[in-house]
């Protein structure tokens, strides 16, 4: 009995000693890690400029945080650090930054990458490679574009609503305010790999509470087109961007106004649901893509004398919406075709549905997309409700004074 117990004791003691001597190999203390919340990549004359945004937890110690004034110019009070280095390649710059930071850089919390336009013009493949091979960066990391030099604009802007830039960007994506392009979206198929739309982040002064000389805050501003991983000249305006997002099934709620078909007054709509179906079709030798949109809308304002209780008038209204939507979609598709970039991923649909025919043309897909593809767009709008009231205020309650 006792020998068994002593043996057990000895083996346990031995194991414990070994365990404590060798130490913990892979554990890195939480406060020994510097979490990258956002990556900024730009191209300068001297090479690739990598900027990593870190939340500074040592400035956020509960009970000790100070300097929470409205003015955000005092950078010593901001809980952010943007460490920036230049190197011949992304990895070299990263190594230099690690040399500057006293903690281990950890990418596990990175959800957003902001690319400068100059870097994007040379091609974004280095970023895609980096994300794909790094075991900690996920493939659903969002990509954004900033025109011109990235570093100072982003590092010094003011953020009224959140503590960190990453929260702002995450909020944009999760509330579907912005086009969401992830690393995965650029890598579906070789035929259109690297084609995509990058949302552009803009900077405006729209916070009246800030003093006149303060830095601008963030806004969403259109999109840029990537072709084969490189930025092209064409830009999409914000209104075109909404149509593009609709085609990618990312637009769910949208507010817009149209002119009434009866008397030209403005009628405002709120789209409650929007479903896109994209289907490939093959007629003979020619590929055709059919884009169908089904949307339901609610009227939120009416400045026209249109009778919203008559079926015929509603039908007219719906036709008007269809026309405008179709025009919007067509113009966006045309713009991307002009740039020769299959940003909507039509290649995937063809490769799935018609593999044999696809194999014949996939080498020249972009060219086909630019010149020969037939695109058919149909919209079917349905007005569900007219809001809480029936007739417009002007019509019902206000008198027409000459």
């Amino acid at each position, binding site marked *: 009995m006792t020998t068994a117990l002593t043996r057990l004791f000895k083996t346990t003691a031995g194991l414990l000693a070994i365990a404590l001597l060798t130490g913990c190999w892979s554990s890195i203390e939480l406060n020994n890690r510097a979490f990258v919340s956002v990556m900024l990549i730009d191209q300068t004359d001297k090479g690739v400029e990598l900027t990593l945004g870190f939340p500074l937890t040592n400035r956020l110690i509960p009970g000790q945080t100070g300097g929470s004034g409205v003015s955000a110019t005092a950078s010593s009070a901001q809980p952010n650090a943007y460490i920036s280095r230049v190197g011949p390649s992304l990895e070299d710059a990263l190594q230099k930054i690690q040399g500057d930071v006293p903690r281990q850089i950890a990418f596990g919390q990175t959800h957003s990458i902001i690319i400068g336009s100059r870097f994007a013009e040379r091609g974004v493949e280095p970023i895609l490679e980096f994300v794909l091979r790094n075991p900690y960066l996920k493939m659903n990391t969002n990509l954004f574009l900033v025109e011109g030099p990235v570093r100072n604009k982003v590092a010094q802007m003011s953020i009224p609503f959140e503590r960190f830039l990453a929260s702002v960007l995450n909020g944009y994506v999760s509330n579907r305010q912005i086009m969401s392009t992830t690393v995965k979206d650029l890598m579906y198929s070789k035929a259109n790999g690297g084609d995509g739309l990058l949302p552009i982040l803009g900077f405006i002064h729209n916070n009246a509470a800030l003093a006149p000389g303060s830095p601008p805050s963030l806004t969403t501003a259109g999109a840029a087109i990537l072709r084969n991983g490189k930025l092209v000249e064409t830009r999409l305006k914000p209104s075109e961007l909404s149509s593009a997002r609709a085609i990618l099934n990312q637009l769910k709620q949208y507010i817009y106004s149209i002119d009434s078909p009866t008397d030209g007054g403005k009628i405002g709509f709120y789209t409650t649901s929007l479903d896109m179906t994209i289907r490939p079709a093959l007629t003979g030798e020619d590929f055709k893509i059919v884009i169908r949109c089904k949307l339901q809308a609610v009227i939120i304002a009416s400045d026209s004398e249109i009778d919203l209780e008559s079926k015929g008038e509603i039908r007219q209204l719906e036709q008007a919406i269809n026309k405008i939507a179709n025009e919007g979609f067509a113009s966006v598709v045309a713009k991307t075709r002009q740039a020769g970039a299959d940003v909507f991923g039509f290649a*995937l649909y063809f490769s799935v549905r018609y*593999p044999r025919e696809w194999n014949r043309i996939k080498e020249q897909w972009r060219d086909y997309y630019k010149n020969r593809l037939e695109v058919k767009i149909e919209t079917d709008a349905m007005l569900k409700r007219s809001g809480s009231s029936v007739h417009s205020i002007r019509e019902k309650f206000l008198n027409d004074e000459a």
Partner: protein
Amino acid sequence: MQTVTQAQLFKLFALHLFSTMIAFMLGIMMQQSGYNGPLGILSGALIGLGMAFFAYRLGMRRPDRFFVEYGKEIVGRWLHTPLVLFIAVANLLIGMINFWELQDFLIQFYLVSTPPWAIAGLCGICIAYTVRFGVNSVFRAAEGIFLFSLLSFLLIPILVSESFNWYIGVGLATHFSPREAWPSAYYTSSVFGEMSFVLFIYPYLMQPHRTFRSMSGSMIVAAALVLLHIVPLLLIFGPELASNLNYPELELLRFMRSGSFLETLDPALIALWLISIFVKLGFIVFIISLILAHLLKLKDTKPFVSPVTAFIAVGSLVIVKSNIQFQNLMTGGLLTLFFASELIPILYYVVDSLQAAWRKKRKGRFN
């Protein structure tokens, strides 16, 4: 002796089949078969079950005797011992390969600087502890874990379902090509064929005539679960991207947007998978110990468990040194070796049937 219920057998086999397939083998299947991965898996599963059927029939002839003992009556001692040793070696290799895959996976993503021997040692201790209490321990462990494991594997496709691009599913029909599916089928059948090792544990089973039902049940559950993982891979990543990923399952896990509760559940799910993989390895170690014990005419498998586990653990550290070597190993003849070891019971079955027919004819002649 009969202590293992059919329900426990079903659960053990189901875990055995789907745990390593989903965790480690989906990448290779995507690379080799693309859209025809699901087809390959289904056909491989059926082929594997077919191979196991013969083992079932052979075992039913003598359900209360151990195969290692009566095998020599069928093919003679000089052939039986090498064949059974061959099966043992094949199982050792399966064990080592799975161990290595586990280690590599863990080190690459989670325990970056931990030396491989520490992981191998810890895994070895857990597996040896599970098996040394005998067959009951292994099967009861499987029984308890089964429900949680199943739920966790089922949870994943559900949680990622909002990222599906359903249209890609059409590709499953348009790209139909049995030739493309064949490599996956081969691979899958060598995994599902491991059910034929039930031959060794017949005396432990209650109601042995229902074994085939349990095995079919396991095959259905395992195949369904694997399909439920490979199809989402296709639907989310598309075949071209999926074939480029080393561990597509992990990437799939990271795609889960489980709201703001837990960003990535992957470490927790990996922990649950680990337990299923341990059950599988426990079964393999048990089979090897059983073979060795019976070859050496010992009654108890306990003394062999620790050495076998240590051998597998150490062997996994030295068998290949890097991922590239591992790929070379797998695409070489190793699969055929496993296949061959699973076909051995069929050989016995055929010989046994011939002998029985011959004996009947001889008896008939004497009457």
